[in-house]
């Protein structure tokens, strides 16, 4: 694996190898000194053309736990504002000594383009509505920690599927590991075509609430136009929100995931966000372990 740009072509074996390594990274993060010297002398460039808090902090923490240095770039206040091209920005980061570049961009395909220009590995930290592979990997890790496997699990992804790179990355990664995925959302928030998506479709959360093992909730992405196609929030909640009443009807060992940021009271009820079977904070913790595993995989070469 040279870059991590998408989950679409990752095999079950590749996914499993990263997850196994992430298990060991999670152990490192629990040590009295949660830091190892493995990437000492390496520099990770963080190029966040689109704003982000948790993903960026998570990558930074992951790099530092492996003793890599980090170099941050954000679009605001940079030369991008002065009209510098994506290509020049990427080449500058490389010239400054980045051994690996983490890219988030509002445009679909930007990390892929950058990977063609630079000689170092590129990790896609989210490109527009396309892909967010490390999010999917951390979700897989979180689910596997709870159930021991993905194979045969029922997963419902509920909400703004069309605008969600998280949904796209997860659908492919989860089904590669044998989970059965159902996407749930108003027709206006589903992709126009689901050709090639290994999923079933349900038109309301009540269709899956009692059968699913994993309830994966997404927010409506107002900034990408999601809000305009939903008639009203109360109506959305009535058909797609995980209310406390619905949470009570879920299977006893089922779990709730959300990639954040959460809109409490919309897709997830306030109480459900912090309920016993909500794994939201475990997801955040696992994000660091998974990103450590991906950096090690890309900078250490491949054993397979």
């Amino acid at each position: 694996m040279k870059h991590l740009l998408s989950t679409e072509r990752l095999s079950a074996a590749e996914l499993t190898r990263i997850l196994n390594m992430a298990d060991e990274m999670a152990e490192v993060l629990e040590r009295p000194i949660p830091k190892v010297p493995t990437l000492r002398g390496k520099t990770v460039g963080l190029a966040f053309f689109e704003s982000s808090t948790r993903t960026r902090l998570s990558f930074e923490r992951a790099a530092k736990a492996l003793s890599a240095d980090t170099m941050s770039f954000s679009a605001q206040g940079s030369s991008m504002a002065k009209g510098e091209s994506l290509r020049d920005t990427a080449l500058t980061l490389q010239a400054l000594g980045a051994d690996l570049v983490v890219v988030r961009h509002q445009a679909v395909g930007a990390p892929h383009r950058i990977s063609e220009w630079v000689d170092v590995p590129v990790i896609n930290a989210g490109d527009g509505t396309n892909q967010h592979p490390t999010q999917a990997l951390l979700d897989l890790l979180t689910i596997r920690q709870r159930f021991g496997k993905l194979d045969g699990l029922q997963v419902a992804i509920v909400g703004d599927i069309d605008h969600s790179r998280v949904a796209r990355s997860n659908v492919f990664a989860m089904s590669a590991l044998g989970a059965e995925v159902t996407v749930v959302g108003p027709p206006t928030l589903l992709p126009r075509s689901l050709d090639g998506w290994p999923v079933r479709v349900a038109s309301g959360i009540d269709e899956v609430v009692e059968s699913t093992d994993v309830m994966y909730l997404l927010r409506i992405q107002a900034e990408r136009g999601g809000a305009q196609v939903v008639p009203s929030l109360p109506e959305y909640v009535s058909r797609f929100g995980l209310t406390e009443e619905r949470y009570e009807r879920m299977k006893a060992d089922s779990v709730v995931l959300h990639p954040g940021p959460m809109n409490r009271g919309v897709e997830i009820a306030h109480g459900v966000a912090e309920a016993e079977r909500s794994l939201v904070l475990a997801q955040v913790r696992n994000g660091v372990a998974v990103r450590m595993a991906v950096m090690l995989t890309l900078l250490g070469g491949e054993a397979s």
Partner: protein
Amino acid sequence: MHEPTSEPTAEHTAEHTAEHTAEPTTKPTAPTVQEQAPQKAGEHDPKPRTTALVEPLSDTDPLLLDGDDIGRILRRIAHQILEQHPDASSLVLMGIPTRGVPLARRLAAAIREFAGTEVPVGSIDVGLYRDDLDHRPTTRLGPTTVPVDLEGRVVVLVDDVLFTGRTIRAALDALADLGRPRMVQLAALVDRGHRELPIRADYVGKNLPTARHERITVQLAEIDGLEGVRLERRA
């Protein structure tokens, strides 16, 4: 949590055995033992040895220690450890994966038999502390488990073959991040020489002078299904 990687893979073996041979490999892929070892036509089973549970030891490579020898050696080391540490309750045995871990367990069993003391056994993987990430692919990491607080304890690191000393250097670094033992010692089943660092073992099972290009292969029942220490000659 995840599917246990109990079944040792060829990669595991290759990684670990490569440890005991000359230079770290610079190839992008981890060659298997069979690929690295010189093959004399028809004399070797083409399968990686770790999967062949009933394969007899090849007579092309000299058998240096058999299972009985290994048993005797470990009992002797257990006695030596108890001689130096009559109060065995301060001991912790930390095996270096892969084969150091079953060796540590066997030493603990022997100490239990001789002194009646249950010595905690852990494992300490050194993959994240190696100094040659650029030279070799990242390997499957072994587990690191710390069974008790190491503060004030005597930690005995246990490995199968002591060679350049780089693995032990990495283990010492890893240990420093895991706790602060009162004393750290090293037990090795085989010391084959060729040290590149100022490191020595406190307990040595057998000194086996070797040429640098030769390879020592240790097989243990828990991992390989059979027992023995062999010298493999390479071209």
